Every structure is written in C-alpha cells, then in structure tokens.
C-alpha cells in the first residue's frame, strides 16, 4: 500500500474514532460532556476536510512516489515494532530481567557483528549494571505473571 493510501486509511479511521468519541461523550453528565463533545465534533469536521484533501490528492496523483521504498521501510519498521511488542509481552509474562536478557541478546546477536559470547556478555552485563543502578535509585522493576506465580508458590 502506498503512503497516500495509508494516509487515507488513517484519515478514515480518525473520522470514525472522533465521531464515536463524540457519540460516547454525549452520555456523560453535562459538565463532563461539553468539552469532549465540542472537541471531538471539531476534530470530526477537520478529519472530514482532511479526508477530502487526501482523496483529491489520491485522484490527482500530482507527484510520483517511491512506493517500493515506502513499502520497504514500513515492512522493516513493522518487523522491528513487532519485536518490541514481543519484548513487552515477554516482560508482562516472564518479567523484566528474563525478557530483557533474551531481547538484548537476540538483537545484538542477529543485527550486529557481535558474536555469541559478546552478545551474551553485553546482554547479561548491562542488566546486572541496571539491577544495581535501579536498586540504588529505588527503581521498581516490572514483575511478570510467571515470575509472580513462582514468587507466590515459594512465598518469596
């Protein structure tokens, strides 16, 4: 899909989202409703204007676009973002430290010229440093569901 088409899809989604927001906001108490209703309706009008602009730009096709380049960067970005989603899912499930070790190791090992040993050492070493730094700064580390279950089972 081209950048223009993506933009068009986003414009349509925004219009629907803003209309849905205004619709939901009208059921709030009057004092809580006026602000989101007015803002969402104003946004819906602007989204409609933007959609019209995007639609005419799509039909006009005034300038050629590097569709292949855009598709490549979207694909690469989506894969990387997918990796971040998996990492966050890993934090929620397994906990911060196990998920971070795996994430750091995989990115360093697969995306850089660090070998197996250096990737492992850097991943573990940086997290050990972060653990001590976090304890010093009283930073709370996310506890995963599995981690919590193990702690509960062993009364930790």
């Amino acid at each position: 899909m081209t950048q223009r088409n993506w933009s068009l899809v986003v414009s349509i989604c925004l219009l629907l989202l803003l209309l849905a927001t205004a619709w939901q906001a009208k059921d709030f108490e009057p004092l809580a409703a006026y602000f989101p209703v007015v803002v969402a309706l104003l946004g819906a009008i602007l989204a409609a204007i933007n959609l019209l602009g995007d639609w005419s730009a799509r039909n006009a096709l005034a300038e050629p676009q590097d569709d292949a380049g855009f598709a490549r960067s979207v694909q690469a970005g989506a894969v990387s973002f997918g990796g971040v989603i998996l990492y966050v899912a890993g934090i929620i499930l397994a906990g911060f430290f196990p998920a971070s070790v795996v994430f750091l190791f995989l990115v360093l090992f697969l995306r850089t010229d660090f070998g197996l040993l250096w990737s492992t050492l850097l991943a573990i070493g940086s997290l050990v440093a972060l653990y001590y730094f976090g304890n010093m700064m009283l930073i709370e580390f996310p506890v995963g569901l599995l981690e919590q279950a193990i702690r509960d089972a062993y009364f930790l």
Partner: protein
Amino acid sequence: MFEAAAEALLILADPNRLLYLFFGVLVGFTVGFLPGIGGTAGMALLLPFIFGMDPYTAMALLIGVVAVNNTSDTFTSVLFGIPGSAASQATILDGHPLAQKGQAARALSASFMSSMMGGIIGALVLFLAIPIARPLVLSFRSPDLFMLTLFGLSMIGLMVGNKPVRGVLVGILGLLAGTVGGAAATPEYRFTFDWLYLYGGIPLSVAVAGFFAIPEIVTFISTKEKIARSGTLESGTLRGIGDAFRHWAVVLRSGALGAFMGIIPGLGGSVVEWFSYYITKALAKDKSQFGKGDIRGLIAPESTNNAKDGGSLIPTLLFNIPTNGSMAVLLGGLVILGVEAGPRMVTSELPLTLTIVWSLALANVIGTAMCFLMAKPISMLTTLNPNKFAPFLIVLICLGAYQANYHWGDLVILLVFGGISWLLKMIDWPRIPFIIGFVLSDGSERYLFLSISRYGWEWLSRPSVLIIGALIIAAIAAAIIMNRKGLVQSMEIKP
C-alpha cells in the same frame, strides 16, 4: 530578586542535584550527536524517571538535556555534513567546509565556545525577563489563563509547516487523550472502558515516551546503516576558542537575537539559526568566504541556537505556552511534578524558576566541557551500527514507562502510543501537536469551567481576553502567511 537568585544557586549547589544535572547533560549530549533522536526524544526518555523527585532536581535533569543538545549536535554537522538536529542545518554551511579543509578541531571548538556563550546569554535574558513579566503574569485570572491555553493550542498552526489541518487534527487527538480519566469539573470518569488503570488518566510520561522515543528507536533498529563512515579529528582547538572570543560581537548579537526570537512560539531552531546566519553575513565587510568555511558563519548560528532555549523558557514557564516540542515535554515534566506553569512561577515557585535559570547556565558550561573532552571518542562513535545501542534504549524506555504507575498498563499504553506515533511518522503526519494538546487539555477545560462559573459569559468581554483573542487571531494569520511563504519549519523529528 538577587537574594532569590542566590538562594536558588544554593538549592542547585546540592551535590545530588548537580549529579542529576550532569546526568541530564550526558543524556542531552548523547542524543545530540546521534542524528534523528533529538532533544525532545531525549527528554521523553528521562521523563518517566522524574516521579518522586523534588522539582528542583527533576528540572535540573531535564534542563540538562535541553541545554546541551544544541551543542553536541555540532559533531555530525561539522565532521560529516549531517545535521544532528533541525537546529544545526546552518552550522553545516561553514562548519563542514572547515572540516574538509582539515580544520575540524578549530571548527568544533569555536562552535562549542560560542554555544556556551549563547547559552549563558539566553539564561541571562530569562533572568531579566522575570521581574518585567511578573506584574503582568500576576494580573491574570481564569478567563485570561483559558485564553492563554487557547493561544498555546493556536501555536500548533505555526509548528506544523505545510500541513495545518493534520497538525490541528493531531492536536485535537491530544486534547481528547487528555480527557481520559476523571473530569475536571465533576466527579465523572470518561473513556475508561471500565479499565481501572485508566481512572487516573493516561500518564503523561508514558504518552511522551511512546510518542517520541519509540518510533525513533524502532527506525534505528530497522536499519543497519551507520551514521557516518569515518571519524577523524585534527588539531586546532585553541585557535577555535580564540575565534569565539575574537568575534565576541557576533556571539553577543547572535545570542541576543536567539534569546529574543526564542520567545516567539513556533519559529523553531532552524529558522532562528538561518536568520542569525544571514544577518551575520549581511553585516560582514568581507562576505567572500561565507559558505566556504568562514568561522563567523559557524559562530553565529551556534550562539543563536543555544541562546534560543532561554528565550523559549519565558513563554513556557510564565505563560504556559510551549514554544516547541522540547518545551511541551518540559511543561509535561512540570505537570508530573505537580507544578503549574504560569503566575505561580513568579510567586510561590520563584525559587524553582531561578533554579531553572541557573541550571540552564551551568548545563551549558558542563556541556561545553564535556564536548571538548569527548570530541575524539565521539567522532568515532558515530561510525557504529545503531543496533549496537538502540536495544538498550528500548529496555530503558520500558523500564522508565513502568515507573508511572508500576502497572503493566503503562507498558500497554507505551506500545499503543508508540504504534500510533510510528504510523504517523511513516505517513509523514506531524506528531508534536499531540503532546501540546495533551498537556494543555486539563488546563483548557478547567479554566473554561472556572471562567463560566465565576463570570458567566461576561468573561468574553474582558479587555485582557479580547487582547489575547486578537493575539490568537494574529498567530493564526501569521501561520497562514508564513506557511504560504514557506517560512515555518516543521518541528517533526526527522532522521
């Protein structure tokens, strides 16, 4: 005023605060020399960690990032001809030719020195502006404050370049995201979808980190391209320092220009820098070397872009009007700390305001010293594959986001906002307006409610309201004219 300034200096002199200031400078320094990240993302990275800090320490940390970012972005501009940020484009024009002539060390040291002087001029202008603006700020009532939030929102038009409708639309999304949770005027919870986590609203620090840090780092991970191919540095440091002192008039003029232009919202570092460059060129007797490696062409924009920060802080702190992305995040930082920008910044929060002034001046000095010390290793670092540092930033962002509520919802919100922002970045939509809308959402709703409940509709006829209303119309008109003439530089973070 001077007593308060001395008191603020004592507050900042606490070793713990100085350590945080140093850490902020270190982060600002790092994100400055990595093209594509920028000060806004750097501040977004640190914002979640300010929870629980006292405002003086937190502001020292954040100001440290802002102050030095424009100094360290010179590395790639001078050495490789790649702008470290939008505000360092004019630096390339004479900085890179100097490096090509084998005078990279001279160019860098002249640039660091003039940046530091510019930064101090900016801090001085901020200090002098406080007593002048104080009586004006103290006379504001809720209708005026509501109009000022509208004025802040109208700045979006000036900030989004040739896409004003999309900019305002994204700003409106920010306003609506700010309404999630408890209503300002009545005990009702809005858009919570029965998820307890959302009853307290969306945490600003998570929204900012998601919106600015995640997309930039995802872009970094997506590529294996190095920032630069080689990093070499010759001698000539002392000559460069001497250049900055020899052209003191250029430094002074450009610094003052930067500080005053920084007050004008939406101009952006790039416009201010180019303006300073052309003024210096116009006033120079011998213009022949400009663009080919004239040291004045480097000193002028560098003094300007650091001085601009002091100027930008005036409307941000005193009038609640963020003039650029970094200022919007800084304003968000104040919200997190429970400090309200506006009249209180010159009364009960005056020590904090003055601590910010001192932090700005000191951060410029520390940042400059750091730039001198790290010049050689940094020039080598820019040849690294981004995948060697980007995953560590992701780990830090996730840990930082979790500090908002210690709830997995923080991580989910981070991903949702990161995903939306990444999509907007891919389709080239402006993103800064979202944070402006988000930060000003609560204030605009609350002040409107207070204005109507106290004054009825009569508040609309108050002279101050009419004056600010006229300013809003002028700002919108200026946005339209400047957009047509192509004068407005988009504040988007672009690699």
